[in-house]
């Protein structure tokens, strides 16, 4: 038995807004989510920009649980989940809780809780660390909080495969639904801005000092961000039966591991290519069937070069005419949320026939169509979402228009 699976709801909290409408409008408008970091003092750092989620109040979205008792990533995740469920038009009681589940991804979980732990420990006050550390920090709590908030009682998993985690979670949700292990899955990713993550990328020399310029010859690096996005996934028959609005079908996925280096991708884009090929194979498609690629496109010299190389390997002659853009040019690198937000982008690209730009692109570093600086109308029948992570974890997920 293998059900076809579709996206029927979208929710997101990002550096350029909250909720599907606002996020999509702002991405198409090329809005920047970058600003001087506010959540901690970057005085000792050589870079000061971040893509934080500013001014977001989780309270309206977190109704069962107390937002004050959730870590930051959990707040964003729960909010995105509720938005997605409402967007899907699924009212409480409409789906049997045992048949509804959560699959989420993250890079660091709730690093701010480690910071709080350390702040106390370093001040000689380990005794003041409270019960909240173990109830907030473990990353499985993010998925658990979503399930708890919404009363879901099926599968509840956290797949923390770093910067590709959102795609891994969506792939897992897809598999569970294909096999009939659930009727509805909330799948996505979340990560919180933190001094830990910022310090790490800063120490690697990976952060751009002024602009995030994916695929530009003068690109200088990535800019850390935070956010959450969740997709409501369900079997096609079920969606049709209840008259749900369908954004796109999740047609297939491919996962691979470079097994090469913890933080640097395989020098020939080997793993990335295998993930793309795996996804195409799973979806029964050829590279030339792909209308749009949502790139990982962090803006680091290495990633963008190797990603372009991998796309050329897989797409061959079709590469130069397959538009590929990176929304990280606007929202930065939101870690585990990134490929989930980019999945939302792919779903909307398929549904609306618009593709977001790669902003700040002045001198393209390669022959591909990176959709420079301006959103574009484009008939997106098939969108491919690519994500690459520390540990060599690569993931590609394909979204396809559902013909009537």
């Amino acid at each position, binding site marked *: 038995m293998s059900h076809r699976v579709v996206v029927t709801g979208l929710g997101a909290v990002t550096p350029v807004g909250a909720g599907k409408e606002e996020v999509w409008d702002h991405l198409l408008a090329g809005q920047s989510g970058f600003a001087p970091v506010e959540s901690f003092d970057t005085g000792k750092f050589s870079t000061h920009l971040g893509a934080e989620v500013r001014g977001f109040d989780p309270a309206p979205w977190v109704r069962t649980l107390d937002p004050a008792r959730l870590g930051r990533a959990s707040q964003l995740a729960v909010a995105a989940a509720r938005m997605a469920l409402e967007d899907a038009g699924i009212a409480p009681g409409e789906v049997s809780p045992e048949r509804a589940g959560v699959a989420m991804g993250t890079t660091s979980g709730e690093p701010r809780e480690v910071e709080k732990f350390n702040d106390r420990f370093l001040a000689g006050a380990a005794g003041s660390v409270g019960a909240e550390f173990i*109830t907030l920090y473990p990353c499985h709590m993010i998925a658990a909080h979503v399930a708890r908030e919404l009363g879901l009682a099926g599968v509840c998993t956290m797949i923390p495969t770093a910067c590709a985690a959102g795609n891994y979670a969506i792939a897992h949700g897809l*598999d569970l639904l294909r096999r009939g292990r659930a009727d509805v899955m909330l799948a996505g990713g979340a990560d919180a801005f933190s001094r830990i993550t910022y310090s790490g990328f800063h120490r*690697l020399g990976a952060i751009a000092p002024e602009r995030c310029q994916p695929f530009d010859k003068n690109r200088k690096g990535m800019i850390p961000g935070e956010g959450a996005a969740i997709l409501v996934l369900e079997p096609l028959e079920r969606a049709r039966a209840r008259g749900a609005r369908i954004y796109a079908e999740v047609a297939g996925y491919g996962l691979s591991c470079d097994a090469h280096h913890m933080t640097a991708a395989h020098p020939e884009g080997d793993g990335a290519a295998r993930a793309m090929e795996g996804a195409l194979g799973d979806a029964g498609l050829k590279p030339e069937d792909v209308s749009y690629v949502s790139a990982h496109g962090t803006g680091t010299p290495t990633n963008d070069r190797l990603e372009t190389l991998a796309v050329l390997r897989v797409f061959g002659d079709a590469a130069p005419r397959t538009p590929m853009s990176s929304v990280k040019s606007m929202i930065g690198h939101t870690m585990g949320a990134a490929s989930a937000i980019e999945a939302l982008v792919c779903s909307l690209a398929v549904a609306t026939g618009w593709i977001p730009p790669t902003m700040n692109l002045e001198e393209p570093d390669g022959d591909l169509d990176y959709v420079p600086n301006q959103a574009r109308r484009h008939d997106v029948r098939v969108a491919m979402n690519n994500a690459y992570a520390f540990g060599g974890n690569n993931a590609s997920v394909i979204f396809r228009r559902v013909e009537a």
Partner: protein
Amino acid sequence: MRRVVITGTGALAPIADSPAGLHAALREGRSALKSIELFPLDALNWNGINHGNGVNPSRLAGEVRPFEPREYLGDRNLRPVDRTARLLLVAAQQALEGSGWTAEMRAAREVGLVLGTMFCSVRTIAEFDRRAVQLGPSYASPLDFANSVINAAAGQAAIWNNLRGINSTITGGEASGLLALAYAMDLIGHGRAEAVLAGGAEELCFESYLGHERAGRLGERPIPFDAQRDGFALAEGAAALMLESAEGAAARGARVLATLRGHGETFDPSAGEDEGAAAEAVARAVHLALEDAEVEPQDLDLLVLSANGSVQGDRAEARGVAQALGPRAADIPVVAPKAQLGEALGASGAFQALTALGAFDEGVVPGVTGLEATEEGFPLGGVSSSTRRLDRRPRLALLHAASTDGQCCAVVVEAA
């Protein structure tokens, strides 16, 4: 759905550094719990412990000590690999060697890895932050940052062993290890992978210890199902199982240790706060696993449970399992290996699987060491404090694990 079999195993636990050693230690009733030496409890500037219920947490834990990774892993540079990953590397190597997946074969074909872990290393991420804060961000450790992500150990194991197939990490607290088996089982069963190393790893560190203690989860009498239990004791370790398709194993003449027959996952939306709901989630997970495996309760002849001494958790598990098994609950032999191994968090589920394999092999069921009496109304009749030799070797085992926060996972395993 293709049949998924186990062709190799590896284990590194406080009481043993191989699966055979583990079976012997469990059979002999040896305990992993000793005075903590990995970190200086008294120097932690904390003299806590009064939850208001008069309970003192255990100052014992299950440490893999002494641990000399080079003894197992040779001379390759281990500096970039943290303790959690080192524990995993030992177990992974044993499973790969035991299953016959040589380096040449791994170069030619894609072998995957799915790791269950609760924290990966909370110690590494915490140390990274402490150093960055104390010395300034220019002196943060790049190697520690690479290991601070929760999929780090899985990534290190892939690099170390050239595992280029699907590589994933799954977390679900104490259920992580079984979740990893279920995840890997499905990847192979549905044709997405040919061979996947699945297991769990967790290191013991003071961040984890302090966190659990502060939340009142640790006890001085960490004995599963015991009427006087008061919490669990932490432990560390790693265990790995080589999973592959039955046809693939047959084609390469591999020895099959067991078959994974089915699995089920649920969540308790009360997150353990409502005992009825918690038991219900356990019962549903067991029911789903039995359904997936197409077996009836009366077909089962062994239970390997995740009870660890938690007052409510153990009760919910026993009730839920009994609910799902009906009359069979009265006499099916029960093993609760955390009586001896302690609570190794992400590694636990994988240890549970190895416990079942050991029982299949020898027909000997480890006792719940230290158990004096179960509480009134305890529904599982097959619990014993001492090791028993069964009349017949068990052939079909149900493994169950629940996290303290509501995730439940059940897996059915069949002897070869």
